[in-house]
């Protein structure tokens, strides 16, 4: 078995798979960076992703169009996050409770809608999912071609969001406003910026990204929907955001860490490693959490993190 592990083919396959597994975490955590930079913590990512997964699947199943599936997933994410924004920004509800409620709502609602539409079926309905799109030329590079340039379109798009997110946060008016609102909402208000408006925007961008990640799971990574398809990725994305100190590039590495651990355990299971499979299943979560906790000790949170803003209160 050891010989099987130490081969380039094995490594290329693990690393390629790591990227595909990192993708949904990455999309969600990039979106959550917008949200948290504005001072809101959306703990409802798990439920948001699940609704995105379902909507993406349904959109694709009934229209036959992958693009429409992606749009449906993102729309569902935006819808879910609007609820979060309403609760946390407008109603000034406790964000932990609002987020937890949103996750419970999302998982219940997704299962309910899925059953209502498809009933009980022997084999789950499937869609024709995103195919691998090898990049001409680059994908022929030995080893790296397989690892980096032989993925489906959504993987490329989501990894392209890393520099885009950085650019928006650092180089645009919107990005600066988001950071200002998250650091010092009163200052933003006194400079004529609508704190609520910026927070709604940031939370909804986060929702769109999480919805995209959900849709990726059902119509790109897999081709069907199951109730537990998200399986904790929303929470891992939250951990990644804090580990990354709200920086897109670090969020990418955090997501890849989880993706790698996950890919490794899947391959080890397939090879029949003499370790109980429950333990292997646990591995990526344990590794990710341990590393993140170790690295993120000195995290400097946005000053107004989880603080609702009210002009009248001092």
């Amino acid at each position: 078995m050891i010989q099987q592990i130490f081969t380039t083919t094995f490594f290329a396959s693990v690393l390629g798979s790591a990227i595909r597994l990192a993708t949904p975490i990455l999309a969600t955590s990039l979106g959550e960076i917008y949200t948290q930079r504005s001072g809101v913590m959306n703990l409802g990512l798990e439920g948001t992703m699940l609704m995105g997964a379902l909507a993406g699947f349904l959109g694709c199943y009934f229209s036959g169009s992958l693009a429409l599936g992606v749009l449906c997933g993102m729309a569902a994410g935006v819808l879910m996050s609007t609820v979060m924004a309403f609760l946390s920004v407008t109603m000034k509800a406790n964000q932990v409770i609002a987020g937890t409620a949103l996750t419970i709502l999302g998982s219940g609602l997704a299962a309910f809608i899925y059953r209502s539409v498809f009933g009980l079926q022997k084999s789950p309905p499937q869609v024709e999912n995103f195919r691998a799109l090898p990049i001409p030329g680059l994908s022929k590079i030995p080893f790296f071609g397989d690892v980096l340039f032989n993925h489906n379109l959504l993987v490329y798009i989501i990894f392209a969001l890393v520099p885009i997110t950085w650019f928006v946060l650092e180089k645009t008016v919107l990005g600066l406003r988001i950071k200002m609102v998250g650091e010092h909402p009163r200052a933003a208000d006194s400079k004529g910026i609508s704190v609520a408006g910026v927070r709604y925007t940031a939370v909804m961008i986060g929702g769109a990204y999480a919805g995209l990640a959900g849709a990726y799971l059902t119509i790109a990574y897999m081709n069907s929907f199951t109730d537990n398809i998200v399986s904790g990725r929303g929470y891992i994305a939250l951990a990644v955001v804090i580990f990354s100190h709200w920086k897109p590039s670090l969020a990418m590495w955090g997501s890849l860490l989880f993706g790698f651990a996950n890919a490794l355990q899947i391959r080890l299971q397939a090879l029949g490693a003499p370790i109980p499979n429950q333990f292997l299943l646990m591995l990526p979560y344990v590794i990710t959490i341990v590393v993140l906790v170790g690295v993120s000790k000195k995290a400097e949170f946005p000053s107004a993190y989880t603080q609702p803003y009210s002009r009248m209160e001092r």
Partner: protein
Amino acid sequence: MEYAVELRGITKRFGSNVANKQVDLKIRSGSIHGLLGENGAGKSTLMNVLYGLYKPEEGEIYLRGERHVIDSPLKAMELGIGMVHQHFMLARPLTVAENIMVGTKSKRGPLLDTRRVMREIQEVSDRYHLDVDPAIKIEALSVGQQQRVEILSAIYQGADILILDEPTAVLTPQEVQELFVILRKMREDGKSVILITHKLDEIMEIVDEISVLRDGEYVGSRVMGPDVTKDELTQMMVGREVLFDFSDAGTLTEPGKVKVALRDVHAKNTCGVEALRGISLELHEGEILGLAGVDGNGQKELAEVLTGLAKVSEGEMLYNEKPIQNRRPIDYINDKIAHVPEDRQTTGIAMNFSIKNNLIIKNHGAKRFKKGPVINYDVVNAYAEELMEQYHVKATGRNEIIKNLSGGNQQKIVLARELADEPEFLIASHPTRGLDIGASEYVRGQILAQRNKGVAVLLISADLEEILQLSDRIAVIYDGRITGILPRGASAEEIGYLMLDNQKKEAPHGNQEKEKSRV
């Protein structure tokens, strides 16, 4: 005479609480105008109305003779009103330029126009000699520099009426002079400046006119001249005569024996940065040692190591000639060391507790308050009643939640608790911060009374006036070191000089910058 600002009949309520009652105010163009009043007199509220942050229930605002409705800060800025708040409106992890341009329109649409803004900021900075680098992050700046960023921001956005809320409170005497140079330059340029303050002394020399508010009402205005005295203005502000003079409070005759001695004490702050870098001090019985310094130079950490809230990493602390470093906080309490903490509302009291529970929070384990394992509330009630009477606490009763009390009454509760057990060593950190004149008078009187009873008092304060009034000796702290110890009667200039350790303008590269307050 044209007025830059004219407020007519402004009334602002918060629920049933009236913060401004029919206030009129006229500010002449090209003048520096002081707005004087005690805490809670409604000065900040009035200016927040002018700045569009609060919407008044009644009243009209005229700018340069024309009536305007100012319903948002954005509107205020368009009308040329700028405001420098007491708590700076700056995001610490962002740069000067970012903080300024967040409030302006970008000429590049959705993209930031950083380079152009930086150049323009530099121009304004040079013009007013503000000496601000637009590319530097706020957290790297001293408080005085941050204030200049705020002024720069207002000027950059075209303000010709500038409101400054308690601008001198956080500055050293030298920084105050630098601020005044800038304000005079603004006046020369025809801009109007409004200074909100409750400290008359600090603005007397610069203002052209002073208006006084008391209990939300307009009392009157005085154009500055030789006939206007400090006493008259103070009386307008307080509504009675004040004898702010402790000189006859019994000066130190013979210093007692050494009660507390620190030898080369080092300690780190919560961020792991060394905040005390070798403090050596001696404190005698029956002596008030004032510790002057700009906030964040190690005062907080010093109070913390003396009460067991922080660890000493190096050096020695002697109390009654016995080492006392690095023990549990309860050991210090049992040794009769009392502590009036710098932040009353987070450390001094539990805001949602009743008065009586706050009074026993430190010694609720004492035998006299207990009946077996339960608290004996009969005893506690009597104890609370007694202290409340002794300290003249204004409240509906011992069961009132302390949050509902005024700052002065909250501080009285802290003092009552700390002084009840007859301490031998009292550490008072900023004991009158945020209190009005009456309450400050009371608290200072209590501290002097302790000194006269033979208690060793360490008085930590950023308020030089307070230090000068009360202290028998004055130690100055800068960047975790004692830069000098002066006798009673030292001048503010001497102290101010030591407060910056002779290095004007350089930020203390210590702890205040790093500390983020997340509540």
